[in-house]
């Protein structure tokens, strides 16, 4: 059960070749920009297509190059939120959330939308257009819209990176609330160490298209901190050696 990802994709000089599995926990894809984190999420969601590989969710195959299976994004039950909340500018907040209720019987839609408005604290904004609300509110609407039809997993591509720190902290709380409420696999892409530490059950470190390390945030970031301090010591040693060389020369 959970999400299983095996992907190979070559774009110009860049090669993405990753393999990982996750259960009903929050996995953070962590790494520098251009490491292939967002591309992975797009392929899981069905927006982009791998060259070959296999993606399955709770035992259901979504993509398998060997059997030519490639379900459309509409046939994959993911909630997908990116850095750009991508709210439909011509629809009010309520209509944006309502747009995500495909597959829910008409009589239940209103109740589901109201539930999302309550859960994501959007009360009072229902009749506003996206252009009339703040960045944090837009991301909450995008989350509400992605979650309203109760997806089987949630994919978040740096959804809070464009927000100010206080709003980002608030959004983390919102996301923790969602995790408790839904109990589904969540994959969060970030290059923010603090965010990864605060949110992750497991960290998958991406390094130029492949997986560097996988582990609990404590393990991953303790090692990184040691390496960083080692690097600082090396720099100090280099500077000291440089001073010695200069002293000798003079």
């Amino acid at each position, binding site marked *: 059960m959970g999400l299983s990802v095996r992907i190979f994709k070559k774009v110009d000089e860049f090669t993405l070749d990753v393999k990982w599995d996750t259960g009903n926990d929050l996995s953070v894809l962590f790494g520098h920009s251009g490491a292939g984190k967002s591309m992975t999420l797009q392929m899981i969601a069905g927006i982009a297509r791998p060259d070959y590989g296999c993606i399955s969710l709770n035992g259901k195959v979504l993509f398998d190059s060997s059997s030519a299976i490639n379900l459309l994004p*509409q046939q994959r039950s993911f909630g997908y939120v990116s850095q750009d909340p991508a709210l*439909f500018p011509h629809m009010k907040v309520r209509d944006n959330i309502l*747009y995500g209720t495909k597959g829910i019987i008409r009589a239940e839609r209103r109740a589901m939308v109201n539930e999302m408005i309550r859960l994501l604290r959007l009360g009072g904004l229902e009749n506003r257009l996206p252009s009339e609300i703040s960045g944090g509110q837009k991301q909450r609407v995008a989350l509400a819209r*992605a979650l309203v039809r109760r997806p089987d997993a949630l994919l978040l591509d740096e959804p809070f990176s464009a927000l100010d720190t206080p709003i980002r902290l608030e959004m983390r709380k919102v996301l923790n609330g969602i995790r408790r409420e839904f109990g589904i696999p969540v994959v969060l892409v970030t290059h923010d160490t603090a965010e990864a530490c605060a949110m992750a059950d497991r960290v998958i470190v991406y390094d130029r298209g492949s997986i560097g390390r996988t582990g609990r945030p404590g393990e991953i970031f303790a090692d990184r901190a040691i390496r960083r301090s080692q690097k600082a010591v090396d720099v100090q040693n280099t500077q000291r050696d440089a001073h010695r060389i200069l002293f000798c020369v003079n």
Partner: protein
Amino acid sequence: MNGSVLFSLRLYLQVALTATFFVILVGVCIAYLLARKDFRGRDLIDSLVTLPLVLPPTVTGYYLIILFGKSGLIGKHLFTLMGWNIMFTWYAAVLASFVVALPLMIKTARAAIESVDKNLINASHTLGRSEVETVFKVILPLSGRGLVAGAVLSFARAMGEFGATLMLAGNIPGRTDTMPLAIYTLANSGDRSGANIMVLIFTVISGLFLYISNRFAMRTA
């Protein structure tokens, strides 16, 4: 105003409006395919449908005769099947206006559709909405301004159509003489007063339609 003037006026509006209706219908579909689908021969289709924009209307008209004439590639089959030929009917005037106005709709609509943020289209798909639903609920409403502009341009082009219509529909008084053709006949026969009246009516009506269209386009924006 005598009967022939009224007939030409009515026919002229009827032809321009009918052609524009089909231009919008077909133009938006072709523009969508060109903007959103990657298929072999896309550039060729793009060039073919844009060709009437650069060809003299008489050349376009000539091609239409080759295609839809009684012994034309399509025309002969139509005649065999239905015993009917489009040449020298008001439908021919609609077809001529349609073909010359279509590129304007396609060009404008394609640019409008391409300008819709891809993230919004992806969001719609990941929310479980089909391609058709995405077209009607996201793409068309967000490219509405460009579509209206394309429709206005196409209507203006259809209103001013002369050359291809003359080739395909002829200039038969009481049957296919739309207003621009009737003015041509009056001017050629030396009936200056008749031509003056027609030109004045033509200019006022064309100006009025453009004014209304522009107002509507501004409101839509």
